[in-house]
């Protein structure tokens, strides 16, 4: 009986985790071909390579962070940002994440959602909308929040500047 209960629980958790990833993937796939959107995907392989090539002394923390990233997806647009933000909030399982930061300034909403415990999180979701841009950024891996802001300063991608807000917390 205990084995069956454990099995069912494992099955339930696997199905739940899979549904969350599916929801994000589905949202990305929905707009991937839309010409108004910019899409960036960086695979774990790429992060592994960059991590290996990164200087261990000068960028020790950054190297560790990059090594922990299992994937990065970014979806941005400058068109109807409020509409897409509302749609993302509705379609993504945001209630299953812990809200790390919420900012509302001049009509622009910024939400940082995480999964995990303490400073190390397994998933970081950034949602921006209502202002000029809509940004959906998804980091998966073993992420040290203290180092995410440092990474934000190094990557020159639209929307990455919002990540610096984590460092200010």
């Amino acid at each position, binding site marked *: 009986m205990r084995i069956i209960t454990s099995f069912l629980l494992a099955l339930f958790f696997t199905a739940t985790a899979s549904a969350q990833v599916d929801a994000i993937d589905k949202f990305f796939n929905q707009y991937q071909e839309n010409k108004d959107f*910019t899409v*960036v995907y960086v*695979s774990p392989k790429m992060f592994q390579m960059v991590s290996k090539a990164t*200087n261990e002394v000068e960028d020790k923390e*950054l190297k560790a962070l990059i090594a922990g990233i299992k994937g990065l997806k970014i979806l941005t647009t400058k068109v109807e940002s409020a509409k897409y933000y509302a749609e993302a909030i509705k379609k993504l399982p945001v209630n299953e994440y812990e809200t790390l930061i919420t900012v509302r300034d001049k009509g622009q909403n910024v939400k940082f959602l995480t999964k995990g415990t303490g400073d190390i999180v397994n998933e970081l979701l950034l949602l921006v909308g209502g202002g000029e841009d809509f940004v959906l950024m998804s980091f998966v891996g073993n992420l040290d929040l203290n180092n995410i802001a440092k990474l934000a300063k190094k990557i020159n991608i639209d929307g990455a500047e919002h990540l610096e807000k984590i460092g200010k917390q």
Partner: protein
Amino acid sequence: MKNTIYLLAFIATFIFSSCNRNPINKIFDTAKKEDNVVAVTLPGWMIKKWVSMAMKNDTVVNDVNTLNTIAGAIKKVRVLVKSHSSEAFTADMNKQVDNLSSKNFDTYAFIKSDENKVTVYGKEDKDKLKDLFFYVNGDENMAILHLKTDISIADFQKLNLSFNKDKQKNN
């Protein structure tokens, strides 16, 4: 009887080699048959020479010798640019490029902005990067870049890339 066996062995070898044809070569061969195509192949020694000249004053890479080692591991670079692509050609190319995932190629990165898409594929074998393939697909234009390499992961580690710009400036 002996001749029949030789003939069958020849046919089998031909079929086997056709099935295992390098998918990148197939992509280049397909594109080369089209009009409005410019294709260039550069040998490894030329790349090494250029990289060596270009990186003399580079500040990101700490060890120029390591970079030369990596450049030396590039066996060949092929570039192909096609303008005025038809929808049928684009669809065929997309299909062939998508198919790389089933031929032991990993998708390293994908970027789409406006009408332009850039996909980077890599193939590794025994801790060595053997192929690096870039597929740039625009509205009516397309470009493919293939680096045939033999770069070991250990060589990447020796690169010691530094993102510490402030420190570099001070130095």
